[in-house]
């Protein structure tokens, strides 16, 4: 039972490059979420998705793009990475909008 996985686990990139972080869940959960975790800010929601082809902005969406063509995948793209996007990114999924969220292991992204 793989649960929820993220890839890559670690990524170093340069300013201006496009980066895509992958998230995959095997539970067929309807809802999926992307958070970034930064010191002093806790977790902040970037985007979420209620179902395939349905996405919505969270608290800090600027500079990020998401898609959800399949229920099990929810990739997060940084179209032109900036140093301020250096962070740890967590993907999560839940059965419904009020339910427990299950988190992936995180992706540590460093933008030079």
């Amino acid at each position, binding site marked *: 039972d793989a649960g929820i996985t993220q890839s890559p686990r670690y990524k170093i990139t340069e300013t201006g490059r496009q980066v895509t972080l992958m998230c995959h869940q095997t539970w067929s959960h309807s*809802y999926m*979420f992307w*958070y970034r975790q930064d010191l*002093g*800010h*806790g*977790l*902040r*929601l970037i985007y*979420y998705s*209620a179902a395939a082809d349905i996405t*919505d902005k*969270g*608290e800090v969406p600027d500079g990020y793009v998401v898609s959800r063509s399949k229920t099990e995948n929810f990739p997060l793209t940084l179209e032109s990475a900036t140093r301020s996007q250096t962070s740890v990114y*967590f993907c*999560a999924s839940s059965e419904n*909008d*009020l339910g*427990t*969220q*299950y*988190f*992936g*292991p*995180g992706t540590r992204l460093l933008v030079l």
Partner: protein
Amino acid sequence: AQSVSQHNHHVILSEAASLELGCNYSYGGTVNLFWYVQYPGQHLQLLLKYFSGDPLVKGIKGFEAEFIKSKFSFNLRKPSVQWSDTAEYFCAVNEDTGNQFYFGTGTSLTVIP
């Protein structure tokens, strides 16, 4: 927008000491409340949650939390901590009318053997 406050940023305790971590939120309506734990190098895991009913909620590993609606609080407690409780603890709130979860900034707990 909802705000979630965790006033204790860093807590250091000796083993067997009692723990209480504060969590306050700002939304005046119906909320669902969560405590997550993140052990060093690991992802977030659910400790406990409150949706409705008994305001005293018991979670895994001996943790409990009490929802006090009048104080907009959901404090986490454990009567006797262990070294293995060393971790980052996050309070989270989900408004009953929305899809978004709001997390606090986290409390880092270090338990000294």
